[in-house]
């Protein structure tokens, strides 16, 4: 390893820094929605999530109303109001008018801005800007202020999305779609993989080539014919064409090429001697498969199960085509997509919903990373 390592101290230091930067870019975005999902919804729009741990004082910028808001009072032109508008009131400790000195004046005192113009800003955010001459211009006075709002964290957002926004129900729908779609293909693929790896029959090479070809066929090719097929079947039997059974079978079909490919390359690599000695002892192919191949293939079966689980859980396209958009069928990804349309700017809803949708994959991923990586390597380092 020493041969690969840069020798100079600066070189090694640079490597640490570079990796740190990469790690930051790859984790900060996710951290952002996790932190935001736990914040008070008024605070989410009041300050960036990276400021959410900041103690009482944080500097913000604002703009006073433009000249059109002025009124005449005691011979002076005055603009009055509250910098927080209708939003949550916070405690202002200091304010200023220059970005270089945002906390020049303490709250409650009148600041002299020159030419007789004074600005007084109080702790509750109310301000009085007065001038002997009329204000002009379409842009109001820029102000900076240090406000003190204690960081407020809450699980209210989770309560809201799970029980009132329908995310809880969608979570169940996603599980309903995912688990059968993960379990059903395994056995079907395992038998096919064993036959393609260890049994001799005409057409085997062609079948393998077809499966490798199907591995890369875009899903888009299947959508329209299957949609037509499902509509036909639905109207023929008088049943709804959008049903869980349809999507279970669809995911089984779409997952099979990869399953067979992955399992076959693993099963083909099992030692020949074991199979042959079992065969000499009189075991049939069925017995060899059930008693020897299946138990030995556990790691690759686990790899495939994780892949398929993540794939189906994260899928949006198949769910949008083959399932309805009503509460009893809409899955998490589709629900999140719908929320992006209907709750566009409500970041407390969006970040929380997004975190609910990614938490299951993250748990699966962290607890079973070993199998996941193994499957990834076995599935794609062919021809390397």
């Amino acid at each position: 390893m020493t041969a690969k390592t840069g020798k100079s101290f600066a070189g090694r230091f640079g490597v640490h820094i570079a990796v740190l930067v990469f790690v930051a870019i790859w984790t900060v975005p996710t951290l952002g929605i996790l932190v935001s999902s736990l914040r008070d919804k008024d605070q989410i729009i009041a300050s960036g999530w990276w400021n959410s741990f900041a103690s009482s004082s944080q500097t913000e910028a604002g703009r006073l109303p433009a000249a059109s808001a002025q009124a005449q009072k005691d011979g002076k032109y005055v603009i009055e109001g509250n910098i927080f508008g209708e939003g949550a009131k916070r405690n202002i400790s200091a304010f200023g008018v220059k970005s270089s000195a945002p906390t020049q004046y303490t709250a409650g005192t009148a600041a002299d801005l020159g030419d007789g113009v004074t600005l007084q800003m109080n702790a509750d955010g109310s301000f009085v800007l007065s001038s002997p001459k009329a204000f002009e211009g379409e842009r109001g006075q820029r102000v900076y202020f240090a406000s003190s709002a204690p960081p407020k964290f809450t699980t209210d957002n989770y309560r809201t999305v799970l029980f009132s926004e329908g995310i809880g129900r969608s979570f169940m729908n996603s599980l309903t779609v995912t688990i059968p779609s993960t379990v059903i293909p395994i056995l079907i693929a395992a038998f096919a993989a064993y036959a393609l790896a260890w049994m001799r029959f005409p057409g085997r090479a062609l079948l393998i080539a077809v499966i490798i070809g199907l591995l890369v066929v875009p899903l888009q090719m299947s959508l329209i014919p299957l949609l037509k097929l499902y509509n036909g079947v639905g109207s023929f039997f008088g049943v709804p064409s959008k049903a869980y059974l349809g999507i279970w079978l669809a995911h089984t079909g779409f997952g099979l090429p990869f399953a067979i490919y992955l399992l076959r390359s693993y099963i083909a690599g099992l030692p020949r001697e074991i199979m042959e000695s079992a065969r000499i002892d009189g075991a049939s192919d069925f017995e060899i498969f059930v008693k020897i191949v299946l138990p030995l293939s556990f790691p690759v079966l686990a790899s495939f199960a994780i892949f398929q689980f993540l794939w189906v859980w994260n899928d949006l396209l198949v769910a949008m085509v083959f399932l309805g958009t009503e509460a009893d069928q809409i899955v998490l990804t589709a629900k999140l997509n719908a929320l992006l349309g209907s709750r566009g700017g409500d970041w407390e809803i969006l970040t929380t919903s997004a975190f609910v949708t990614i938490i299951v994959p993250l748990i699966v991923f962290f607890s079973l990373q070993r199998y996941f990586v193994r499957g990834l390597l076995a599935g794609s380092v062919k021809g390397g």
Partner: protein
Amino acid sequence: MAAQIFSAIFVIIIGVGGCVAYFWGANKLLDVVFPSRGVSGSTAVDNLRRQGLVRPWLFVGPAMIILTIYLIYPVVETLRLSFLDRGGASFVGLANYEWAFGDREFRNSILNNVVWLAVVPAACTFLGLIIAVLTDKIWWGTIAKSLIFLPLAISFVGASVIWKFIYEYRGEGQVQIGLLNAIIQYFGGQPQVWISLPFWNNFFLMIILIWIQTGFAMVILSSALRGIPEETLEAAVIDGANPFQIFWKIMVPQIWGTIAVVWTTITILVLKVFDIVLTMTNGQWNSQVLANLMFDWMFRGGGDFGRGATIAIIIMIAVIPIMIWNIRQANKETGGH
């Protein structure tokens, strides 16, 4: 909802039970029809041979039926539909293809797809390779890799929300709650509505896919790098090669095959990219791509299956070279049998 959970459990039991029953039953039936035990020698040999002819098909049968219904038949049907009108009733020849190449939105999608194809696989592979090499040299490399790998588990929709939050725009002078605009404003720049900037918005969407897929490239390439014989690196060091020469002239050429695999895998993914565009812009501001356009035409105005199928075929045509390459590689590996 209880009924739904019950039906899901029921399906698992029926599905798995049905598979077990089929494989076990079919196998049993074969033994009964062509018995190999308890019959005279020559009959037993004959029956064993017959069993050997039938049994593989019993094993691959269910998989073949499902693959035929869900993948093989649709490929043929989509090709047929692309020559038919919107409802699939009458033959229109190449009209759908002519429409496609004259359509502004379609041409825009093709252009965008080309840019995606040029940028995303290259960026993922390059970044993945760099990170793989760097993390190999430090003691906390495994943790770093694990964290960079993590977005691979996140759905495209989830990732889109994550990044939409980063790109969030507030008017100039307001408190920016989107990280990118906050940084820009901190350094005195103008905040931008990133996802509607003409042309460049494509890149802001691509970043999402790069963010997701770099971990994939990194893991695969990292394992390939570990397979490089140590002697070649030592020899290079003894010959006085600097780290950059070692990287470009010793390491990269030895993992060329793996780089190609990573590149093609991500290329296929890019051709199918749909969720990110749908959730971020839905093709507005000239950010349309083929897969999203296809989905759009499936349902637009009640659905135009002819045009949808045509777009699918065009995606397929782009995949075919990779498909052929994959099959050839696989044949080479198994020695062609």
